[in-house]
């Protein structure tokens, strides 16, 4: 059998049902696309010179970009942990990061709303 990277994931446990591994991959890819959308939102706010009070606009933009970076890190770690849990037949890791990202995005959107009104 070829040795698969990363060994910390594939070296443990047994081969899980392929459908679960594939679902795990799709989840990872969905998080990456979500991250790209968050990054785009942050950059667009500034690049398109949106008519929003400048300091609030920059804060929102930084929040979106920060959440995007968080989503990327979460995507990778979640993929690795979930794949390992599948192989070891253990409970899947938690989803707290999703709540953090949604809350952060909500804050940024509120700032945008306030900033639009202040302009």
């Amino acid at each position: 059998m070829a040795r698969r990277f990363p060994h910390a994931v594939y070296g443990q446990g047994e081969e899980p049902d392929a459908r679960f591994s594939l679902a795990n991959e799709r989840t990872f890819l969905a998080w990456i696309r979500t991250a790209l959308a968050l990054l785009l939102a942050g950059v667009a706010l500034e690049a398109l010179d949106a008519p929003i009070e400048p300091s609030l606009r920059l804060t929102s933009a930084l929040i979106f970009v920060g959440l995007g970076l968080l989503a990327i890190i979460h995507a990778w770690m979640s993929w690795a942990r979930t794949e390992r849990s599948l192989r070891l037949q253990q409970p899947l890791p938690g989803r707290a990061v999703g709540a953090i990202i949604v809350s952060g995005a909500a804050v940024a959107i509120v700032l945008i709303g306030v900033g639009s009104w202040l302009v």
Partner: protein
Amino acid sequence: MTAIADPGLQPERTLLAWRRTILALALGVALAVRYVDLGGPAIALAVGVPALVVLAVAYATTTVRYRRVARDLAIGEGEMPGVGGAVTMVAMIALVLGLGSLLALVPAVGLTP
């Protein structure tokens, strides 16, 4: 008894998910190369062109990988190929885009009009 058709759908969905993610990343890299101001095109191209090449290779190898997975599932054998390499490369390219986005926000760097 023929194998259930369903085993082929999951790899296909996964292949499509890889493709649209890779395309989204390629678009992001192209936009970043075009718009992030690093005092000249040299750095952006030095990072962006290899990234696009990596993405093109990933696109091709992903297609090959899932054709194989679909076939293996249909005949009920074979170990799933490892995707840790592809997953890591995609995450790293996304991370570069994230750092580029952060740079784009720094007023001193700014964006090329």
